[in-house]
């Protein structure tokens, strides 16, 4: 008879998780290259296609997975020569101490040896592996749409942009980096454009997220009210049964 309370509890848990995810989206509304996430929910056990005469099992709601929207974020101009944005589906490959990571955050800079690195000092992969070294003495750095880096008339390297056939193998590992969790090997991305002096904004749509906040809090209130009336119902029935005796 406590089923209604447990069904309510399963909904409360998913709503809290949804709020956590929305909170993370809104905290990263201004984080370069951030990709918005949302919770996918499912009914468990799944509803049958047709109602049978037999009683249906009680259904609970479960958080099924996190959907990550890899859609393009808006590009904004910064004019910093080592700010890069990817237009299209692809990632920059980064060498970290824990192995190769991928990012859409193109806020690069040079380290003390002239190596192109991320803001945490991790080296950016060149096309076909290897680091990219730029000597600022040689003049202005120009990065073409295909990632070719040149200074004056000299070609100094090319930034590698890779893609995955299946984006769900990627897992966020913090610091704007994504980790490849499977053995899927990235391939060079063919149809992307690297934009110099631009950055890709986070693709969080604040209106959608704030609407979700309202939705979550209202749903939480109503499910709590349902649980309240269920508790009230059992309290009353116990009272009444006590009176009958």
């Amino acid at each position: 008879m406590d089923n209604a309370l447990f069904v309510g509890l399963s909904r409360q848990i998913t709503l809290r998780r949804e709020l956590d995810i929305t909170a993370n989206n809104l905290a990263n509304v201004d984080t370069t290259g951030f990709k918005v996430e949302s919770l996918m929910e499912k009914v468990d056990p799944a509803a049958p296609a047709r109602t049978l005469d037999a009683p249906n099992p009680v259904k609970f709601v479960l958080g099924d997975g996190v959907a990550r929207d890899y859609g393009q974020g808006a590009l904004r101009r910064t004019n910093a020569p080592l700010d890069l944005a990817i237009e299209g589906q692809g990632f920059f490959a980064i060498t970290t101490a824990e192995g190769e990571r991928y990012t859409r955050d193109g806020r690069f800079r040079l380290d003390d040896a002239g190596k192109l690195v991320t803001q945490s000092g991790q080296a950016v992969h060149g096309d076909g592996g290897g680091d990219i070294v730029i000597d600022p003495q040689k003049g202005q750095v120009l990065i073409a749409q295909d990632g070719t880096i040149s200074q004056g008339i000299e070609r100094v390297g090319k930034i590698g942009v890779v893609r995955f056939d299946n984006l769900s193998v990627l897992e966020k590992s913090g610091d704007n980096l994504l980790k490849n969790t499977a053995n899927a090997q990235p391939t060079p991305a063919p149809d992307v454009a690297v934009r110099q002096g631009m950055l890709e904004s986070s693709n969080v749509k604040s209106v959608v997220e704030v609407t979700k906040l309202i939705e979550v809090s209202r749903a939480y209130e109503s499910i709590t009210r349902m649980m309240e009336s269920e508790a009230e119902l059992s309290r009353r029935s116990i009272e009444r049964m006590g009176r009958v005796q």
Partner: protein
Amino acid sequence: MQALRTAATGMAAQQLNVEVISNNIANMNTVGFKRQRAEFQDLLYQTLVTPGAQSSDQGTVVPTGVQIGAGVKAGSTYRITTQGSMTRTDNNLDLAIDGRGFFQVTMPSGETAYTRAGNLALNDQGQLATEDGYLVEPAITIPAGVTAISISKSGQVQVSQAGQTAPQIVGQLELATFVNEAGLEAIGGNLLKESGSSGAATTGVPGTTGIGTLLQGYTEASNVDPVSEITALIVAQRAYEMNSKVISTADQMLSVTSQLKS
């Protein structure tokens, strides 16, 4: 409730953002100032279900997993070292650097600091110094009684004296360059200090490969663009507000829960 802490990281990050933006706007008219930008990164993720984990012994895998992020953190403040515009002052000791490079300044402690602010002056001994009186390296002394000082694009300092026809060379200015200019550490007073990430200073004569040229009678304005700063301020304010909405929503949900048992 994770959401409360997550939103708090968002508010703290936007607060830092506003601090950086306000410093940029405050230094809009500071000679040689380079604007800064607060950079954010997402924080750690708590993985509840690993994507790619086996969901049965038939080899099926979880397609997306459940990962919940813990918010945002400030990665660094990055100095954008683009050229500022040239302001004409007609003061013959005002120097602007067109291109890369920094003036070298000897601090009272004996250390060398670097600056793009070329509004120089003479001290009581006729030595070339910054507006704070710190000597410019290499030291240049202007003799008393000169009628004109001219500084060439390549940093040669010449003076004309009364009664002499040919100008006299009194010194040669040098500029320092760094592999990673953005890695210099700001120490206030328009001065920057060498750091572990900037690389060592390379000095040279202005106008040689990779080093900018000097412009006498001009100063370099700050590269702060008021329009983009104000836009960034609006974005920061709205982001702050939205994060506070998350906190009030989480609070409301908690209060609903606590009223459940009445």
